[in-house]
């Protein structure tokens, strides 16, 4: 263990190294740049590679290329860069290539306010790339959790052969907290499922028990084809409806059947709560304080923190909604995840608490929503 005062972005970089990341490609952008700076210094010490690409499109492409070459890979960016990455994020989904994309959210749209906090990219993380696709997005609430969830993001990406988005906000990215960083050898790492059949038997996109096909790295002697076109089990382009349908079903199923493992939440006093606050990212910190104040005033309030934003914890929220009167959803946007909560809230009333001017949501705002009649 190393006790340190660490910044959120630095914790992401260290978490990546602990998870076994050995390739980073990125383009400088506030407020995520520290992730690149730390990794440019640290990766070569471990024999890993860092490259500053010409833009975010190229960065996303390079990490996919490196992952297909066998290295755990990541990039980091913020809103404008995340928009540029959407094209090749879809390629990673289509080719089932493990990789991690950190988006330290800043206020948008467009150039917006680069140093201000926001949670405005929640829906972009879900639906930013075109077409129907599953996605995993994780959102830490503290510096230690930025480390942990970065490791988790790599582990999920390798296990399920999918891109994973790490959705930070500027607050978590730039704040400093005390952190007892674990020794890297004590961090649990998941490696992609390798191939154990001879090359002539290998079907890179074939059926498998887990719906996640084993992955051969280029250069390992399994010569196969990777394409962004719909493909058959051999990886070759197909226009056959049955093969396209099978692909879509399998790739969505590999996430859906593992929701119990993928959806990470933290529950605080949900039992018997009449009001439940559902929050994520830095907003959880304001929510914690608001809940504490509300309890002092004898309100029965619970807090559900969503560490996994996508897939949305719909079963858990629906269950809570059956037993509480109202759900408060504070977000540093004009109401994005609230749409999901409202979808499953049933008869409970959903109160949105929104702020989209770059400031954090004050606990008082959440308290008022808890107490409002």
């Amino acid at each position, binding site marked *: 263990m190393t006790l340190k005062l660490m910044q959120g972005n630095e914790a992401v970089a260290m978490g990546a190294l602990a998870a076994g990341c050995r390739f980073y490609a990125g383009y400088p952008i506030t407020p995520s740049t520290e992730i690149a700076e730390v990794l440019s210094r640290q990766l070569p010490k471990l024999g890993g590679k860092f*490259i500053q690409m010409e833009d975010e499109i190229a960065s996303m*492409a390079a*990490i996919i290329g490196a992952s297909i070459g066998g290295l755990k890979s990541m990039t980091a960016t913020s809103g404008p860069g995340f928009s540029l990455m959407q*094209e090749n994020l879809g390629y990673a989904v289509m080719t089932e290539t493990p990789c991690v994309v950190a988006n330290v959210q800043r206020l948008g749209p467009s150039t917006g306010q680069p140093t201000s906090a926001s949670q405005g990219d929640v829906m972009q993380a879900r639906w930013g790339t075109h077409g129907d696709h599953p996605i995993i997005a994780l959102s830490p609430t503290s510096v230690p959790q930025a480390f942990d969830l970065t490791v988790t993001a790599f582990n999920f990406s390798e296990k399920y052969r999918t891109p994973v988005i790490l959705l930070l906000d500027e607050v978590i990215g730039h704040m400093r907290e005390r952190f007892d960083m674990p020794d890297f050898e004590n961090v649990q790492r998941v490696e992609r499922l390798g191939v154990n059949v001879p090359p002539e038997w290998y079907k890179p996109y074939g059926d498998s028990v887990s719906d996640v096909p084993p992955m051969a790295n*280029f*250069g390992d002697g399994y010569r196969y*084809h990777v394409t*962004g076109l719909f493909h058959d089990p051999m990886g*070759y*382009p197909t226009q056959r409806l049955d093969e396209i349908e099978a692909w879509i079903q399998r790739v969505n199923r590999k996430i859906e059947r593992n929701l119990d493992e993928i959806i990470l939440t933290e529950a605080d006093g949900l039992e018997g709560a009449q009001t439940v606050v559902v929050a994520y990212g830095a907003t959880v910190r304001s929510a914690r304080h608001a809940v504490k104040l509300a309890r002092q005033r004898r309100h029965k309030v619970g807090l559900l923190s969503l560490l996994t934003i996508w897939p949305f914890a719909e079963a858990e929220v629906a269950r809570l909604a059956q037993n509480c009167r109202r759900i408060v959803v504070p977000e540093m946007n004009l109401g994005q995840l609230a749409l999901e909560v409202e979808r499953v809230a049933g008869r409970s009333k959903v109160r949105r608490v929104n702020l989209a001017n770059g400031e954090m949501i004050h606990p008082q705002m959440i308290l008022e929503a808890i107490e409002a009649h």
Partner: protein
Amino acid sequence: MSRLEQHSAYNYLRHTKKFPNVWCAGCGIGIVMGALIRAIDHLELDQNDVALVSGIGCTGRMPVYMDFNTMHTTHGRALAFATGLKLAQPRLKVIVIMGDGDALAIGGNHFLHAARRNMDLTAIVVNNAIYGMTGGQYSPTTPIDLRATTAPYGNVEPPIPVGELAIAAGAAFVARGTVYHAVELDRLIAQAIQKEGFSLVEAVSYCHTTLGRINKLGTAGDMMNTIKNNSVTLSAAEKMSEEDRQAKIVRGVLRDVERPGYLRLYDQVIERAIAQEASHAG
């Protein structure tokens, strides 16, 4: 053994992939594919150690037919994907296959920077001066005054000189061949693959289906003849006036310099980082 199996290209093709290919009868892209296979065969490279990376378009479809590690990526981004792959697997010979629109319009930025970094990749640009797959829109290499489906009154944008652009950006090796001069093309590609750093081969081709039909340039054979008659070797070009040379396709090795490739330079970064870490620890 059948005649087909005796063909030198046979072992490099994917027989599980259903032929025929997507290209029109008479297309020049297949000639470039043949040249690439002959170059790899001549160099006796292990198929496991070769990766072919392409973008989108008619040319982008080339890798799927060949039995190597093959990757068909997004439009214009092939060089960026290839950069990541090469850095992860330096042992691989990574060959990037692009069309003119792919490499120079949507992928222009990646093209400049791969050349500037002297990234250890071989790029082959099949230049047919048109967007063929989408049906004949003008590209960054369409000659002035030719018509295209999106230039019905004639193209007014000057074309990019592909090889000269790569030279300006810093490529270690730049060559130009044509699909008429297939044997020469084999040799140029083989030279490029052996080169440290960024190497480019521009393969001048044609599209009789779109550009040719719209501009009444004749059949595939006629367009092939035009390429033959309009091209000169580098040594012949040097004896020509500047004005005469401008109208010609100049074939040959346009640049060949020794410059450390990116991988060798990044190995120095790794060495420095490790040395600094050791001195701090000491």
